[in-house]
């Protein structure tokens, strides 16, 4: 029973991983930019949620009204700059690594390196949980929200990529840039739009993070391992793959922690990544660079 509880809780937490990874994965796949600043945006989203909710005493969910547009603009701006500088994939990694450090340290200077958490009055979600009576399972509300938001946002994006002109344009652009351009697709516009959308998902992920735990700037770096595991397992640029991979990684981590020990988790995760890279470099679910 413990294992089942752990696995299911892990799946729910995995929703948050997927949400964090989705923006990174799609900008990497489509725009060929590895944007580590994404981690900075998530962290910024979390701190903004904390700050807005605490000072104005509003529900953390409502802060999204402000943080999503704000981070959309920020994400778009970063992409606009990258595009202007004609940055290659590898330099994007270096450049964004430098800027990520700037953002994280800046946040640390503004909000201090101590743990920050919204108070219980502001954030009623943290302490609530939902129990499945018959099965004796209990799930904290924030993880349920994370799972729900992940499914809705990633699923929605997946549908939008298939059903709208802009969505199809993005996929076409990822598959063959020159020919996409020949059909009227402007790479600047589409890149800025996509990076903006990724920024908005960072806001959602940040909000969920602020809702469920205490914040400290250094967490941004702790996300690296898990998030990149999800990106690579899901297949770079593959949204549904990212969602499933997020849930899997969440479950895997939780189950390994219960069955073996928490120390084994990074090892299992790392060996999974290495195996996937060796056997299926395109990701678990993709058949070649799908999106």
């Amino acid at each position, binding site marked *: 029973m413990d294992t089942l509880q752990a696995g299911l809780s892990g799946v729910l937490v995995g929703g948050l991983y997927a949400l964090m990874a989705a923006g990174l994965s799609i900008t990497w796949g489509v725009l060929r930019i590895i944007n580590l600043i994404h981690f900075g945006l998530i962290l910024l989203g979390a701190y903004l949620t904390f700050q807005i909710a605490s000072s104005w005493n509003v529900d953390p969910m409502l802060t999204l009204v402000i943080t999503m547009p704000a981070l959309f603009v920020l994400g778009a701006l970063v992409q606009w700059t990258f595009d202007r500088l004609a940055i290659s994939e*590898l330099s994007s*990694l*270096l450049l964004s690594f430098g800027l990520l450090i*700037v953002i*994280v*340290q800046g946040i640390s200077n503004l909000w201090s390196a101590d743990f920050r958490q919204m108070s219980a009055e502001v954030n009623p979600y943290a302490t609530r949980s939902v129990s499945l009576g018959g099965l004796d399972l209990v799930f904290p509300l924030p993880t349920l929200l994370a799972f729900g938001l992940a499914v809705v946002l990633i699923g929605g994006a997946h549908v939008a990529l298939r059903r709208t002109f802009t969505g199809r344009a993005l996929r076409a652009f990822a598959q063959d840039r020159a020919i996409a351009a020949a059909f009227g697709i402007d790479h600047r516009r589409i890149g800025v739009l996509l990076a903006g959308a990724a920024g908005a998902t960072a806001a959602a992920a940040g909000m969920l993070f602020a809702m469920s735990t205490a914040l400290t700037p250094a967490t941004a*770096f702790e996300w*690296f391992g898990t998030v990149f595991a999800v990106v690579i397992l899901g297949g770079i640029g593959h949204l549904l793959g990212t969602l499933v991979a997020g849930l899997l990684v969440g479950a895997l981590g939780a189950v390994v922690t219960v069955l073996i020990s928490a120390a084994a988790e990074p090892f299992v995760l790392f060996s999974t*990544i290495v195996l996937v890279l*060796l056997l299926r470099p395109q990701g678990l679910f993709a058949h070649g660079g799908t999106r």
Partner: protein
Amino acid sequence: MRAALSRRRGLWGFPLAFVALAMLSLYRETIGFPVFYLTLLTTILFWTAQSTSWNILSGYSGYFSFGQAAFVGVGAYTTAVLYGRHQVDFYVTLGCSAVLCAVLALFVGGLAFRLRSLRGEIFALLTLAVPFILGALAQLNSAIDGGQGIIVTVPPFPSQLGLFQDYLYLISLAVAVGAVWAAYAIQHSRFGWALSAIRDAEDVAEGLGVATFRYKMLAIMVSGVIGGVSGSIFALQIGFVAVTSVFNLTVPLFVIVMSVLGGRAHWLGPVLGAGLVTLLQDRLTASGLADWRLVVLGGVLAVLVVIAPEGLYVRLRARPWPALAAFAVIVVGLRLANAFGGPLDWILYGALAAVVIAVLPGRLGRKTGTARAERTDRPEPTERKAAVPDRPSPDDDEPAPTGAEVLVECEDVARYFGGVRALDGVTLRIGSGELVGLVGPNGSGKTTMVSLLAGTLRPTRGTIRVAGRDIAGLPPHRVAHAGVARTYQIPRPFGSMTVRDNVAMAIMFGREPRSLPRARAAAERHIGFVGLGHLADARPDALNLHQRQLLEMARALGTNPKVLFLDEALAGLTPAEIDNAVEVVRRIQRGGTSIVIVEHLLRVVNQLATRIVVLDKGTLLADGEPRTVMRDPAVVQAYLGKRAHA
């Protein structure tokens, strides 16, 4: 002459530098050198060793690692656990660190470099994960740390050395000088040349006979050993080892910033970078701006990637005197005025001024200017037919020796890509001394054929023998050693090397490997042979397309091949250039090398080749004397469409 000079520097320079710097500590009191400076120098030395360790792997080979903290951490914890906790002799722990880090490095490298088509970004991410995992392990495992941290006490050291700071300084100095010397030695050896070639164009290097996997493994191992030993000493320096202080993302940030700032293709780059960055950090802390250190550093990295990706060393080398003058003027000026802080501040301001002077002139007036000039100089086409001399072909005066001995044998070779049959059942023999034209309409399988013969692709079916040796499944560098060389349609020279060194590279790693000085001497002959003698010291980016194609040929000849594949070597050339290229090809053939020329320009191939092989839709359509083949109805139809021959 220059080689001799640099060897002398290798022999004497490093011991001299070591002695000179050691004096600062040994005669510290006599010359009145403050201990505080010694501590700062120790930090600089630590970062020098670390960024040099990073540079040997990532700077030289181009595979960026974000995992330097793994070496620092493993080194520091090895010493902390063995010496700090179990009182094992400190020097023994240094050896243990070296071994452990070497093993770790080989493990990571063995996994990463085995990946087919490993991309640099994937390597970076893999290495990013390593310190994170090791840190978690240390945190959770109480035999290592268990979340408490470990105190490392001062080890016994000879009392003549004075303070512990002196001791620490001296061993840090020894490790740093050793590391820089290793970087220097590597840069000037075959090993370093192989790494540069890997950085510039890895698969080309492999195709010229460089065992790329082995060299990458060697590089990551050396990097690990240096990083680990230096990490051990770091444990003494900090006195208390905790996960957050060693498995820390600021470590890769620092080493990358230092190496990128200093210049990562050169052994001196990280030294410059480590000095400057550490001084900057120290001064920021001293001015009460400690919180902003990382902001400044992250910003510096971002700006550098954009404006000076090649680093300071190259810029300073280009204009050393203005930079030195700026440094001197600022330092002396501030000293005389005795304003703006103390000596360290003055040095920092001077160094910053020198940096600005070095970096400011922007793009160094990129060499594109010359390349463009040369393009306009090209002879204008006068008459198309004049492109190839109307000589009867094959040449009556010098009959090509054909088919004396079978050199390349393809037996029923097929290659499928998924369901697509790029090649299907091709049987082909090429004799020594032949000049074969391999032609066919678009999509006929020519490129696949060349890739199979050069070993970059494996056949789905069939056997390929070169000089009696089965090459199917051999790595490309072994195929090169079997006697196969190729050129690329879009020339891919090693951009960081001169024309001479491009060819010397091929000779050093070719069928009969030679040392660098001998290879350089031998390279002259090949360069002269293709007519690039006057450009031996030029960089490839100053060459025009035709010259780069000739360089491709000279480089391929450098491997001393039995058979040479020329892939579209004439594409995009002017008629006069085509004439010249054709002449060079003939000369190569007369030298006894078999040539397979893959070409679109049929009129040239028909006159040049002794034999034409036509592929169409992955099968062999015709094979024979040019004029006969080109009148074959099947060939005519393949080129012109049906009914054309009727």
